[in-house]
């Protein structure tokens, strides 16, 4: 039986540069996985390829999610199937408030599913509960998406979007970078609140303390040169903490 998410021998390139080089990984429903690895090992590429970013070309391998061939779907179809990416550097959308953005996103999903648009009351309720839980103020919801926010605020808003859209599979691309201690807690809190037997997470991070204290993963993978070179539990964190990635990189080259 295949897992909830099954990545098999995935190969991808950006331009002429091959970045993913036969990556295999499987995640079951309800699991939280962490991916670590040195810069350039393909962590961010993996998250972009899973979401269908047209900037990357898949040259081989397969990805199935909830039994569907993910690679056949376009970006928005994957999103509507439940794949969510919390961006490392979220882009600005001037003039569009976060509240409007979420309304469009939710309604686009409902429209695609043949459902009626959300009514204003239902939407306001949904937004209010989640904003409070994640410490997102009304003022932040009114301001244009990602315009003029600090790094930490942007990440908090990524977590907020995740809570609004209730995806089945959440990819968090370096959520903890550029955040102060409190913001890291909010991000971790988001994962804690969202954790459920029907939802899995793939968390990309360098921050061992953050992973240990906030994420508490089921499994840890180390990535080097575009493939997974080590799988394990939290004990892998200790090894990385002590020796860095040097040993893993050697393994990948050999």
């Amino acid at each position, binding site marked *: 039986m295949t897992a909830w998410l099954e990545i098999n021998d995935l190969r991808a390139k950006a331009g002429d540069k091959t970045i993913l080089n036969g990556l295999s990984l499987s995640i079951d429903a309800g699991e939280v996985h962490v991916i670590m690895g040195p810069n350039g090992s393909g962590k961010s590429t993996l998250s972009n390829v899973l979401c269908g*970013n047209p900037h990357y070309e898949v040259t081989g391998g397969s990805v199935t999610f909830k039994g569907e061939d993910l690679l056949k779907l376009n*970006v928005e179809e994957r*999103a509507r199937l439940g794949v969510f990416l919390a961006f490392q550097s979220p882009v600005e*959308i001037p*003039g*569009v408030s976060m509240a409007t953005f979420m309304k469009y*996103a939710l309604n*686009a999903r409902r429209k*695609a599913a043949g459902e009626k648009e959300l009514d204003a009351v239902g939407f306001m309720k949904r937004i209010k509960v989640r904003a409070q839980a994640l410490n997102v103020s009304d003022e932040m919801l009114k301001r244009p998406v990602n315009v003029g926010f600090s790094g930490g605020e942007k990440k908090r808003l990524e977590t907020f979007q995740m809570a609004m859209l209730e995806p089945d599979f959440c990819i968090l691309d370096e959520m903890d970078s550029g955040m102060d201690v409190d913001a890291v807690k909010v991000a971790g809190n988001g994962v804690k609140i969202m954790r459920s037997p029907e939802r899995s997470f793939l968390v990309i991070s360098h921050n061992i303390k953050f992973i240990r204290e906030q994420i508490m993963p089921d499994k840890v993978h180390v990535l080097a040169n575009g493939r997974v070179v080590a799988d394990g539990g939290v004990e892998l964190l200790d090894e990385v903490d002590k020796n860095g990635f040097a040993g893993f990189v050697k393994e990948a080259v050999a």
Partner: protein
Amino acid sequence: MTQDKVSALEAVSDTYHYGFETDIDAETAPKGLNEDIIRYISAKKNEPEWLLDFRLKAYRHWLTMTEPRWAKVEYPPIDYQDIYYYAAPKTDKKTEIDPELMKTYEKLGVPLHEREVLAGVAVDAVFDSVSVATTFRDRLAKQGIIFSSISEAVQNHPDLVKKYLGSVVPYTDNFFACLNSAVFTDGTFVYIPKGVRCPMELSTYFRINAKKSGQFERTMIIADDNSYVSYLEGCTAPQRDENQLHAAIVEIIVMNDAEVKYSTVQNWYPGDKDGKGGIYNFVTKRGLCRGVNSKLSWTQVETGSAVTWKYPSCVLMGDNSVGEFYSVAITNNYQQADTGTKMIHLGKNTSSTIVSKGISAGKSQNTYRGLVKMGKNAENARNFSQCDSLLIGSQCGAHTLPCMLSSNPTASVEHEATTSKISDEQLFYCRQRGLNAEESVSLIVNGFCKDVMQKLPMEFAVEATRLVAVTLEGSVG
């Protein structure tokens, strides 16, 4: 036209939703332009001698003029003898509106039966050359507001029309304004008396229907001392392979402490995706802020027309008068727009604001052209201009041509301009949240135009937002 034919036409025209034709008898003058045609139009409208003289003077002057070619638009020469200058829907009884016409306006969403009107919008509808219905007139008349077709105003209020006709846009102003002065057929006339705040939005809906016909309407708005009016203008035309000419004039006079807000959603047929057909929209709109503390605000959302040539302007004559211009111009496929404004500061402490948002997609060309002029007596006059361009794709063009002339050292002029592109990263971000590519573009564009959109009256803002999406259909691969 039968209902079947209407829906069949709609099925083929999936991007331009107003491209149907109404099958009604039209009374047309012979094709072409000469003094006899002008006399014919004037006689049809039972006009007084002075108005015929005005038309003939304009026509004779027009013969000496040449068509302006300085705008950044290209189109083949117009054969002015191949146009019908008068086309009126024929009706059996003068008092009844043709049911086919009613159907057309229902399709356009214009409510003509007052009883059916829920929103407080009074409508004057101009179909080809003739104003067919003016709703709410009686209610407005109780407050002394005149809201009628200009033809009726000529009959019922000749002194007012005579006093102000051509006072803001003289017939010598430019080639198209001169042509309009000679052949204008109908339009809307609004007079708001002293101290009256017009209780509802006034609205005109223009529609070109007849083949090979031009539309030359003329709108006059006079806001007397301490009055206020908000006026909306909407336009559509059937989908045709040929190009049709629309050369209108809008003249606005704003007296002491009065305010006029003029909003346009222009959705003339833009031509097909290969650039065939569409309206040539060559329009002169100008307002004179004559009184002290007067205010005129232009808000326009331009999505239609094959070629647009239009510069709604304010002449700020009264001290402390205020002029505003908020514009969104969207071009796609082969559309060309050369649009902007003129702010002429004559009085002391006059101020003006220009916010222009140009969006180009497809192979279109979109130009902002503006003039800010500070006269020698414009002590402490201020202007702020912001011109932003957004490009979608790599085959379109955006151009910004601001001109600033100051003859008064105490006047200040500020200009900001930006050009940006919808980035792949923005599209990916929106699509990752579940919006498809077109929904993403429409969201980003609406965000880009937000400052202008929120100036529109509520009922127009909804339509404008929807039009943005329709206009940009097919603009992303």
